[in-house]
């Protein structure tokens, strides 16, 4: 067993919180630049220019790209040969989030109770943590801060198997249409197909972590990604919903086997501030 100190995890998470909120991944920046070249609408072009300027200012001044620095969503691949000492994993993550959001001048956007009191927890905890036990003696930590605007426009449905490929396509396009300007386009569309009621949205969220330009390894799903992207970009929503060609930068599909009676589908929309960062300990 390899021993990893909880304190080291907290320190790594603290840095991840700041870096993820100040610096946009390079594949997203490249896709935005490509979008700027492709966009036909002058208003849309101006929006993309502002987005690219914003990326530079955030990095130079070390201030968050978006004031909504999100709920801190973690995907952890925990090697089964790792033993965490000096504390437990989830506490270490939340400690890192607390410090990162405080010292990094990031907004605290969590209410402690969703329904009755809705008072701000003031340190952006608790985080949402997905843990997967994997072979090996490393811990991979991915942080994807997720803002409220695009998350609120995401949807899940239990389709009938008879709805088939057409039903899936219609649901994805309808979700993007309904989201319109609210989800801060150009968006990345994460699609989870299969699994069950809770698996599909987890797949959709995980799909958002994929690099722009990479496709699902299964050719049928890769073709579906391309077709959906083209159709979404013909809807006309455009950057910020003000009209234009560049509504989405990518459609990423992840899938999983499912029950003979089901065809679950989830669409998780990611705004253009597609922040995520990872570290391996």
């Amino acid at each position: 067993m390899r021993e990893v100190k909880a304190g080291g995890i907290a320190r790594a998470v603290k840095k991840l919180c700041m870096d993820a909120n100040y610096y946009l991944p390079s594949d997203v920046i490249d896709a935005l630049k490509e979008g700027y070249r492709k966009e036909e609408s002058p208003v849309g072009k101006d929006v993309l220019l502002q987005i690219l300027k914003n990326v530079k200012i955030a990095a130079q001044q070390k201030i968050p790209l978006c004031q909504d620095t999100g709920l801190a969503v973690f995907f952890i691949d925990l090697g089964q040969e790792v033993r965490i000492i000096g504390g437990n994993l989830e506490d270490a993550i939340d400690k890192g989030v607390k410090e990162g959001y405080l010292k990094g001048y990031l907004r605290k956007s969590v209410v402690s109770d969703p329904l009755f009191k809705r008072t701000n927890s003031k340190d952006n905890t608790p985080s949402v943590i997905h843990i997967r036990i994997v072979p090996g003696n490393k811990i991979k930590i991915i942080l994807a801060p997720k803002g409220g605007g695009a998350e609120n426009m995401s949807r899940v449905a239990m389709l009938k198997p008879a709805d088939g490929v057409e039903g899936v396509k219609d649901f994805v396009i309808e979700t993007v249409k309904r989201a319109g300007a609210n989800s801060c386009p150009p968006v990345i569309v994460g699609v989870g197909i299969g699994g069950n009621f809770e698996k599909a949205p987890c797949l959709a969220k995980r799909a958002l972590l994929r690099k722009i330009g990479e496709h699902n390894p299964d050719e049928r799903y890769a073709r579906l990604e391309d077709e959906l992207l083209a159709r979404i970009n013909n809807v006309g929503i455009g950057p910020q919903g003000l009209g234009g060609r560049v509504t989405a930068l990518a459609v990423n599909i992840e899938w999983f086997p499912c029950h003979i009676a089901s065809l679950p589908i989830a669409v998780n929309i990611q705004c253009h501030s597609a922040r995520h960062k990872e570290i391996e300990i």
Partner: protein
Amino acid sequence: MKSETKLLAPLSSKDIEKLEVGDKVSLSGIIYTARDAAHKRLVETLKRGKKLPFNPEGQVIYYVGPAPARPGRVIGSAGPTTSSRMDPYAIYLMEAGVKGMIGKGSRGQKVKEAMRKYKAVYFAAVGGVAALLSQYIKKAEVIAYEDLGAEAIRRLEVEDFPLLVVNDTKGGDLYQEGTRQYSMSV
């Protein structure tokens, strides 16, 4: 794209009535921030017949919950939040005299009708460019509901803040018109 109109906030009815859907506006002057929790309190105050923490006449409300300021800075990143969440409250504020709203995303039918009735406009700022937009904010001061943290009401002094007119006083809607213009049958 249309040419740019320079405006000074608070706004007059005259300023508002000449604005049209799609106009680029460069806004300077004083504006107030408020989002979900602050709107709830503002409208409760109005319903009780009490005075608001600021004079609403001609004011522009910016739907934003800024990030904390780094030391030596006026404000942290400060971009618009989704406006439709403020729809249940917006009509009361327009009735009280508010003339402009800044946010992102489309408004409901009732709010659009109220904009025509009370002669108010809805401006979009680009969502997610909060670091850039914070550069146009020259002063910021919490004036009410400090306990709400990011959601407290702030009085901002802005200079050439870049906006687009989404809904004017004549019933136009830039989101609908823009999407229609670029839509290809799908």
